[in-house]
Structures are given as structure tokens and as C-alpha cells.
């Protein structure tokens, strides 16, 4: 295992060392010490690496991750795993706003709570939040899955497309065009699989499913807010 201490090394040098593994992978296991809320840690990875960040991360940790397994042993700031392509990002603590924004693949697991706009504009990734999510989560989300084991805030799934949303607890309110839907066999299977992958011991039958009513897909003046 390679250990990088950010009290002695810059974020730039850390990311460059991780990016250099894209050409020739000489070390798969990395540990980052003293992150102290630094931004852009372990972003743009493109290799099957395992990175353990021991402490809190700032904005955009593991942004655009492709293939790597990044674990934050603390909390993470805005936009963790934004636009992730594949791989896994796990945050042991809480995450701030826009977690997993626009992510296209891979799995983001938040063991604590997530702030506002979790999964905003989601494009295919899976997000599992053990706690609760803030307002406007999955705003304009297009594809992928958001699982909330706690409660969801205001305007869940506003203006969503084909994303799947499962919430175990309460939903403060649903956003435009977001409706509760039947939990069919395939959804229970999908949710069970996701909970298992995330390491969450919850009963899929206790969740409700939300998705698009598809009434806003084609412009209709009667749907405009006057």
C-alpha cells in the first residue's frame, strides 16, 4: 500500500500520482492521510485502484471516477462522486449538497445523511443513502437509481425523467411530475440487489417507489405554471 500524507504533499501531487497509474499500474492500494477537507481529492481516476481517505474530504471528492474504489473515512463536501462513470465511492459519514450529481455509472454509498440535491441530474449511476436526503434530490434526474433508507426532503424528483427512486421513510413533498408508483417484482429485485451491494440490511418491502408520471415529456401549455 502507498501512503500519501497531505500535510506533506499537495493535492496536485496526490492526483498526479494516482493519474500516473492510468498508464502503468504499479500500486493498486492507496491511503491518504490528513485530507483536512481538501477539495478535488482523488478526482479523475481511471484505473482499478483502491483509495482510502482517512478524514474529511472537501468538494468534488472522487469526481468523474472511473473504475476506482474510493472510501472516505469521514464526511465529504459538495459534489462527491459527481459525474462518476463506474467504480464505487463510499462515504462513512455525511455528504453535502449535490452528491453524485450527473453520475453516469458506478455506485455511491453514503452511510450518513446527504444534503440537498442528492442525485441531481443523475444519468445512470446508483446511489444508496443510509440516512436521509435533503430537498430537491433527483432534480431533473434522467436515469439510474436513488435509494433513501431514511426520509426525503421537499420536492423529491422534480422534473425527473427515467430515474428510479426508492424511499423507506417519509417524503416531505414530491416535485413536479414525480409520483408514487407500484413496487413490482422487478423493482423489489433491483432494490434488494442494490441494498446488498451497498451493505445495507434493510427490507425492500418497507420501501416505496417513485418515478415520472411522464406528463412533462412533451411540451403542453396546460402544464405550464401561470
Amino acid at each position, binding site marked *: 500500500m502507498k501512503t500519501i500524507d497531505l500535510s506533506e504533499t499537495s*493535492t*496536485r501531487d496526490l*492526483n*498526479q500520482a494516482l*493519474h500516473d497509474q492510468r498508464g502503468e499500474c504499479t500500486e493498486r492500494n492507496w491511503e491518504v492521510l490528513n485530507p483536512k477537507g481538501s*477539495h*478535488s481529492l482523488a*478526482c*479523475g481516476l*481511471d484505473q482499478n485502484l483502491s483509495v482510502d481517505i482517512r478524514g474529511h474530504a*472537501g*468538494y*468534488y471528492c472522487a*469526481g*468523474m471516477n*472511473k473504475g476506482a474504489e474510493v472510501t472516505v473515512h469521514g464526511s465529504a463536501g*459538495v*459534489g462527491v462522486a*459527481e*459525474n462518476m*462513470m463506474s467504480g464505487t465511492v463510499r462515504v462513512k459519514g455525511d455528504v453535502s*449538497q*449535490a452528491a453524485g*450529481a*450527473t453520475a*453516469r455509472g458506478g455506485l455511491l454509498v453514503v452511510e450518513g445523511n446527504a444534503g440537498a*440535491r442528492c442525485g*441531481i*441530474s443523475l*444519468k*445512470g449511476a446508483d446511489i444508496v443513502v443510509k440516512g436521509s436526503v435533503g430537498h430537491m434530490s433527483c*432534480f*431533473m434526474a*434522467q*436515469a439510474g437509481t436513488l435509494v433513501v433508507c431514511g426520509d426525503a426532503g421537499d420536492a423529491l424528483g422534480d*422534473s425527473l*425523467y*427515467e430515474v428510479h427512486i426508492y424511499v423507506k421513510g417519509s417524503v416531505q413533498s414530491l416535485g413536479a411530475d414525480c409520483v408514487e408508483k407500484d413496487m413490482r417484482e422487478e423493482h423489489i429485485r433491483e432494490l434488494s440487489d442494490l441494498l446488498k451491494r451497498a451493505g445495507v440490511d434493510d427490507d425492500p418491502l418497507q420501501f416505496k417507489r417513485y418515478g415520472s408520471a411522464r406528463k412533462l*415529456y*412533451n*411540451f403542453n*401549455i396546460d402544464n405550464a405554471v401561470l
Partner: protein
Amino acid sequence: MTHKNPGLRESATFDIDTLAEIDRAATTGIYDIRGFGAKRKMPHFDDLLFLGASMSRYPLEGYREKCATDVVLGNRFAKKPIHLDIPVTIAGMSFGALSAYAKEALGRGATQMGTSTTTGDGGMTPEERGHSNKLVYQYLPSRYGMNPDDLRKADAIEIVLGQGAKPGGGGMLLGQKITDRVAQMRTLPKGVDQRSACRHPDWTGPDDLAIKIHELREITDWQVPIYIKVGATRTYYDVKLAVKAGADVIVVDGMQGGTAATQDVFIEHVGIPTLAAIPQAVKALQEMGMHRTVQLIVSGGIRNGADVAKCMALGADAVAIGTAALVALGCNHPKWAEEYQRIGSDAGYYDDYHEGKCPAGISTQDKDLMSRLDPELGGRRLANYLQCMILEAQTIARACGKSHLHNLEPEDLVALSVESAAMAKVPLAGTDWIPGTPFQ
């Protein structure tokens, strides 16, 4: 205005266009959506004139004497700034709004002339990357098709906060243009009326933007320049904030800038003219000691070499063209007049880009219509047009005694109207008067 029948007088307030729009609104109950840019008359580059050399200035020979045109963009932080042969770039236009052949033609023409093209709200296509020697990759609120591989293939990244045609608005691509390929690239169901987000999903202000730029630089190992594009509104403040956020290059798009689709009321009533925006941007850069360090690209209604030269004289480092490039490819060409008429428009007036019925085969995804545009010929036409613009700009620069387009300066300009003098901050012709500044 009087009718051809004497005695019938058109109202200046309720003119024929206004009456038609009221009728259209009363009939449909919905605002008009269209493409193109602002059509209203406003102070523009035609309201400026150059002071050629005579007794007090020394001109250069107009045909062969050296007058350089190259420009380096993005040398503030990027390891690999962009070096263009000419200061006229191709503005962002999406695959989806335009056909793949049109994007290819833009790439071919720009590459022939040593300049860059720009992606749009639909991601990067292999055709576009393949035919554009220098390609700027737009980072938009929608993030359609965004991925780190394409990000690393780009020669520059342009973070789009807005565009001149609709500052504060997101994109639209109506269902008739969402084909299988477009839908797949945007992760959308086929045939939906697609609404792009108007604000970025993972940052909410200039302080956050600085961190976002840092992330993009980290992902790309600080190799390529990062532009910030804004629609012209509060340009002075926007430019200052963009510099503070860490931009290498700032793109300011005036309200004459085009769009593929938005509300007519947005196009005509939001934003400020390009002419008014440039001095604000330059002032902001100069006050921060960043003029020529952070480069300024100006777009919105640029049509010829005189417009290019005027932008440069006002302090821009380069310009971008969109609508004019499409016209060079054949948009609104008279040879399609009958077909334009068949769809309720006419050559020279067509702006319903969102309907996907473009007779010239440019703003469409229809296979038969698309095939009307030969990308090689289109590329040649664009290159010819760019070459003509540069020759014109050089002609003016030499007449002003400048050996590089960048050497043009506000002192070379005068204005034809009080309005344009006030906006451009150059004196009214024949006077020393710049409205809004103390009399010298």
C-alpha cells in the same frame, strides 16, 4: 410608415409584426419559440467607423505588408494554451441542434483556417473531434454526454454559464430532433421535448465555481485552458468574478448571439448588445491587471472583417461566430426559397431551427434533409468565408498602421451615433465627446 395605398398609415406602436404576434398569441395561447438571434435593430458595429492613417498616422501597404493575425488563448494557467492562426473561432453549437454533417463541415472549415470549433449541449461526437484540429469542449449545466475521456481529448474546456440569446435560460431541443442517436448521447427517452437545465447542478456561485475549475484542472492535470462563457448582461461584474474564479479565457456573448431554440421574448428582451458588453469586459480586465493575460473572446452578431477589427480595437483578443458560420454553410440560402415557403417561412427569414425541417440540411436530424449538406463543400465554404473576414480585417488594420490585428485600439475608432458612442466608449465622429464621460 405609410401603406402603398396613400392615406393608410401603419402604427409605429402597433405595427404589422406586433399585430401578427398578438393574433398568434390569441390563437395558440403559447409563446413563440424560435432559433436565430435578436432581430430587433440596436446599436451595433455598423455604428462605428475606423480612422484610417493620413498625416498623423503611418499606414501599412494594404496587400502584402505583414499584418499578423494569430492569437494565443489560455496561457494564464494551462500547460498547453491554444495557438490559433486567426482570431475568429466557431462558437458552441450542439450535435442535436445541428446535424452530424454540419458539425463535420464546421470542423473541416475551421481546421483549414487554423482555428477552433466548439461542441455544444449534446456532448462530443467522434466526427467532430476527428475533423476539428482544435476543439473546445463545452461544460454545460445539463452535462449531457459529459465524461472524463472526452474532457481529456479536448483542447480547451468552456464552462457555459449562459449565452447571449438567453442569459438565465437553459437550452431546448424539441422532440422531433431527439432521434435515437441524440437520445442516447443525452441519456433521454427518444422524442421528448428536452429542457436543458439553466443552472449548473453542483455549484451555485462564483466561490463554488473556483473550486469547480480547480477540479476540472485536476482531472485534466492542468493541461488545457478553461474558458468561462457568459451571456452579456452585468458584464463588468461577471468578468471580474470569472477572473477571480480562475478562468484562462472569458467568452462574452452579446444579445445578437444565436440559439437553436428559445422563446422569442427571451431573445429580443433579455441581455445587452455586444457593442455595449465589450468595453465593460475590457474595463473589468484592465482594472484587475488581467487584460491580455486572461483573453477575451467576443461573440454575438459578428458578420464580416470590419466587425472582427472593431472587436479587436475595443480590446477583444478573438471573436466567435455561430449564425454567420451556418449562413456560410448555406442556411437561409435563396436556392431553397420554395422549400422555405412551403414550411411557412422564406429564404432570409428562416428561424424555426427547433422544428428540424431545415431545407438546407443544417439544423435537422432528418436523414434526407441532412444529406443535402456536403460536409467537404460546406467546410470549403466556411474556410472561404473565414479567409474573407481575415483579409477584410487586415485591410482595415493596415490602413490604421497596425502590423497585428491585436494592435488595433479604441483610439482608431469613432462612433456614428450618440448611443453607440456611449456604449462603445469612443467619441462621436468629428467630436471629442464620449457620452457618459467627463468632457476632455
